């Protein structure tokens, strides 16, 4: 463990801005992509269930 204090960890030897900046962007991109993909699938499932709903009633 080479971090003495928490503030030392954040300053990251003076390069905190760059290191945390790049990790922040990576986190945003990855989280963003997950959100985008999953709600694309959710809206699709919803649309399909809406269009199919009437047909199901008739079959019963």
């Amino acid at each position, binding site marked *: *463990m*080479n*971090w003495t204090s928490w503030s030392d*960890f954040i300053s*990251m*030897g*003076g*390069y*905190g801005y*760059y*290191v945390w*900046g*790049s*990790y922040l*962007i*990576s986190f945003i*991109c*990855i989280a963003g*992509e*997950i959100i985008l*993909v*999953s709600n*694309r*699938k959710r809206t*699709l*499932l919803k649309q*399909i*269930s809406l*269009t*199919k*709903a009437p*047909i*199901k009633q008739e079959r019963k």
Partner: protein
Amino acid sequence: MAINWFKYSSPASFYTLAGKMIPYFSVVASGLFLLGLYISFFIAPTDSQQSEAYRIIFIHVPAAWMSMFLYLIMAIWAAIGLAFNTRLSAMIATAIAPTGAMFTFLALWTGALWGKPMWGAWWVWDARLTSELILLFLYIGFMSLQAAINDPRRADKAGAVIALVGAVNIPIIYFSVKWWNTLHQGASVSLTQSPKMATTMLTGMLIMGLACWIYSIVVILIRTRAIILERERHTVWVSELQGSSQ
């Protein structure tokens, strides 16, 4: 018993198979990410020359690996789709492109962020960064071509052709950019040779690379299932699917 590979090439069975695989992969991916981050920040020693800034390597290099790796995989799936005329492989190729483009963008952005403290400039016409930029253009070209064609079958095939042509060109582009870089500037400004690979650094990077790989499998599977739903909307099995609302 002969495994019937083609059973999973039909969108319907692939849909359920992917559905089962996604939870496991996502658990593995998040586990690896946490492990990788832990190693990169807490175990990897401070680098002698670059002190702490080099820690960006743990996200920059895996992203660059993934961007090239995913383009190759996309080209392979595109070729299979073109050769065997299987719709599913073309769907997978289409699903790979956005994740590949995301990793390229990430590699460029983290590269710039790393370049600023090390070389003092946000953007340096280093051979690798430049060919990474061109790779991003290739991805964007592929995606925009597929978006412009509304008939899915033609879009798949046209995308496959441009992906393959692009793949043939990647070595040529990399080679010419490398030459171009060394010829123009006197001393070629290249990334300071990567810090001598202490084992912990290397393992940290490999684990992060693995995490990104499995992460992209998860995202690509989800997107493939979305594409399957989009294109198979009219089929019977999609309407049955609603029962399970899985």
